[in-house]
């Protein structure tokens, strides 16, 4: 029973921390660009504000626009149930790494449809580009998961985490590191970060993710924004838990848990810094240069698999 409670607490923590992570990244970026930037809790305020606003819905849109925010929210909540963050407990019997990929696909699928729903040019453009990016990155994600599955003999994320975390250093090798690198590119691509997309742009022609949300306002927009924040948090968490989970609490004792929480926060911060550095130092890639990056990720993942078998 305690493990179930822990898992739920962990999920709640992930859901609660999501806007904070976004806030931190924004703050870090501001610093690097020599701005003061908004406070790191600004995303909470934004969401709260949006939740109180009325919304305008396109007269061309249909029930797809109506249900999409809820589907996105809930699929992310369910995904959060599956991901171990600071302790190797979760509702993992519900689904494994592959299920996670499909839950993310579900969010993306509905978002892309909602983008088409209103019949706006920008929505269509976003939807079209999002599908391109996702179809190129999904094989990389699955192959990098395949690598850890090979290393641990399971696709269940909790088991992966605990196997790697308890194995000492024996599993560290080219396979794991290459897969981690491939997944990091996937984190950027799946969450509309530079160099794939620019989350802070407001020039419609260059947007991917934001273009899909153009028609949303008020509560709906809040849900969509929140879902993508949770998605980012989950991706970052998975990057650590699936590939480099050391430090996570593998047993339910107070010191282990404490260590787990601290290490987890440190890990989040590390990747936030990495993302901020990338976003401050690189420009967004042209759309048709993206395949080079994304197939690069695929090749990294494939090399990971290969080095598992060959080395």
């Amino acid at each position, binding site marked *: 029973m305690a493990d179930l409670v822990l898992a739920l607490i962990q999920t709640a923590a992930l859901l609660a921390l999501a806007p904070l992570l976004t806030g931190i990244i924004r703050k870090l970026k501001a610093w690097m660009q020599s701005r003061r930037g908004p406070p790191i809790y600004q995303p909470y305020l934004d969401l709260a504000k949006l*939740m109180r606003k*009325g*919304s*305008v*819905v*396109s*007269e*061309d*849109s*249909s*029930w*797809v626009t109506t249900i999409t*925010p*809820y*589907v996105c*929210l*809930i699929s992310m909540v*369910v995904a959060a*149930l599956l991901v171990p963050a600071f302790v190797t407990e979760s509702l993992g*019997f519900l*689904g*494994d790494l*592959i299920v996670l990929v*499909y*839950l993310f*696909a*579900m969010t993306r*699928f509905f978002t892309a*449809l909602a983008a*088409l*729903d209103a*019949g*706006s*040019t920008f929505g*269509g453009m976003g939807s*079209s*580009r999002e*599908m391109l990016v996702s*179809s*190129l990155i*999904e094989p990389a*994600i*699955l*192959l990098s998961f*395949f690598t850890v*599955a*090979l290393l*641990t003999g*399971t*696709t*269940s994320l909790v*088991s992966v985490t605990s196997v790697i975390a308890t194995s000492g250093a024996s599993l560290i090798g080219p396979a794991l590191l290459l897969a981690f690198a491939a997944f990091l590119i996937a984190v950027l691509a799946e969450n509309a970060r530079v160099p794939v997309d620019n989350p802070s742009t407001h020039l*419609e022609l260059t947007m991917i993710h934001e273009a899909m949300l153009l*028609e949303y306002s*008020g*509560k709906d927009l809040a849900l969509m924004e929140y879902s993508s924040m949770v998605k980012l948090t989950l991706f970052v968490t998975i990057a650590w838990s699936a590939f480099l989970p050391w430090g996570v609490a593998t047993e339910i004792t107070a010191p282990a848990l404490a260590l787990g929480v601290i290490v987890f926060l440190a890990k989040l911060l590390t990747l936030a810094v990495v993302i901020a550095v990338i976003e401050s130092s690189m420009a967004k890639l042209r759309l*048709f240069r993206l*395949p080079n990056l994304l197939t690069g990720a695929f090749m990294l993942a*494939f090399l990971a698999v290969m080095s598992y*078998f060959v080395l």
Partner: protein
Amino acid sequence: MGPVREGPKRWLVTLGTYSFAATITLGALATVAALVTVRKERLCINLSFGLSALASLMGLLTSISVFLEGSMSFEFTAIPFLGPFAVVIDPLAALFLAAISIVALAASIYSLGYVQQFIGRYSIAKFCALFPLFLVSMVMVVASSNVFLFLVFWELMSLSSYLLVAYEHEEEGAASAAWLYLVMAHLGTACIASCLLYLSLMAGSLDFHQISLYAGQGMTELARSGAFLLALIGFGAKAGIVPLHVWLPQAHPSAPSNVSALMSGVMVKLAVYMLIRTAFQFLHVDLMWWGLLTLFVGSLTALLGVLYAIAEKDIKRALAFSTVENVGIIFIALGAAMVFYAQGMMQIAALALVACLLHVLFHSLFKSLLFLGAGAVVHATGTKDMERMGGLGKGMRYTSILFFIGVLSISAIPPFNGFISEWLIFQSLLLSYSIHDVTVNLLMAIALGMLALTGALAAACFVRIFGSVFLARPRSEAAKHPRESHRSLLLAMSILAGLCLATGVLAAQIIPMVDQASTDVIGVSIAGQLTDGWVLEVDGGEVSSVSPILLAGLLGLMIPFAFILVRSWGGRTPRVKGKTWDCGTPLGPRNEYTPTGHSQPILRVFNPFLRGESSLSSDPTSSPYSRRGMTYSSSIPRLFETYLYEPVARTILGVARRASIIQTGSVQRYLAYIFAALILLLLVFR
């Protein structure tokens, strides 16, 4: 005729036998009824499809009784010198029979309303007579347990579906598409017949059971491989594997949609059915490269299929290409099963085969749903061109929701059924690490990558299809005032949509049934390990699991809950209708994303495979500074037609032309042939 097994539930076996007989009888009756009521068209429709629906129900009953109580069989003699013909429905056959029955049930109900559109244009009796014939021949294909009987019904299935494809023969290209289909099917049959007859001659019997007892013993490795390759080509042609798929995207769209549903949904799978029997039961897959070849062909088929689907503007052709893609996925799983089987890893082979069979079953459900939906849409708008649709979701609300369920299933969105089978296929591919052969490992990894890519592209494809058909604003006059589909159409689609969801959610309850079929083939049952009724578990050292029913429960409960919660948060906030934001330009069909636009980035990236050409031209009368009347056109060439089929056809024609000089019309020349033939024979054989 009589039940075979004795047992406590004998009445069930008897029921199965009688319901099978009823299936065939009702089907035949439906054909006869159609021919008798030629003049009364509505009566003809109601009678024929009513009876077909009943026949399908009986078929379903048969397969249920087989699952509950084991195989049923009987024998009869029609052509004495070939010996008695056996009809056997074992669990493998019953699984496919179930797929046929369900889809046929839906298609029959659908036809009650759908076929009315042909009144006055084409012969109703012809359709009503051929449809049940098609149905019966498919049932008999799975029921036949004799090579000869099988071949008869196999060809009959092709023939009746050919005539149905050619039904709207005044439409452009329908007759030639149908012709191509029949020719490819016939070529396939030639290979199949050679393979099966050869095996039966070696075994000394046409009976499937005898052949599987013989199982290729005493045949050389070369002979067995030859037989397998013939089977792969023959059944592959029917299933639509690349490069034998060329007929599929032409024939399936040309057929009336209820027939397309049956063809794409079930007929194509019957090739998989028989390939499983041939490979596993008749040849006992003992060479691993057979499996690897199947896997490779499957990967290629899946990827090319989905790419062509993305490029397609015709909704039914896009769905047909997506069938090609899914056949590829099925072949990936089948190939994996064969590899594991050849390696003696029966547990994993069984897992892969269960995955394969599940995908077969699920694809029948969602693809026929999609085709039925497409039929409704095409009927409402009068066009198959997605460029000219748009915004249909408003006028055809129920149709759009039902179609959407199909789209979710085929895109493998949890908890719908497509997700379950893909999950299992991924799991079985992952388990390939236990084979200690680096080449195989890497091939499997590539297949896995291809499968992932295919899955993602399929999602892109169906976002595009659903988006451009049902969402946004209408892009043509035809799409402006769609009418909701006829009740029978909606009922038929609801059945399939319901099953798409139910089979996904209750996958753990379906799997034991599918496992029976696979146990028949592989000899190992894995249902007990795979599921306990709540979760699906695969053990590869540590346990990987998914619980479709709990996932579905969570999603199903939490989404409405979240809806109510969020909507009531902070009092009711106003929701206002407004115009779509488009930088203030007037909204019309011209500033929407079209299907062509939507797929352009993906096509551009994958152009090295497709070799597509696009051109941009502008109205020359407009000023060079502000271009007006720009036209973008893109085309994907038919690579296989151009580089494979047309050269062959040209060669044959060239040879024939060259041969034609012998028929000059001169008597002297003709006599000279006799003279030459005689002298040659005398010289050589005196």
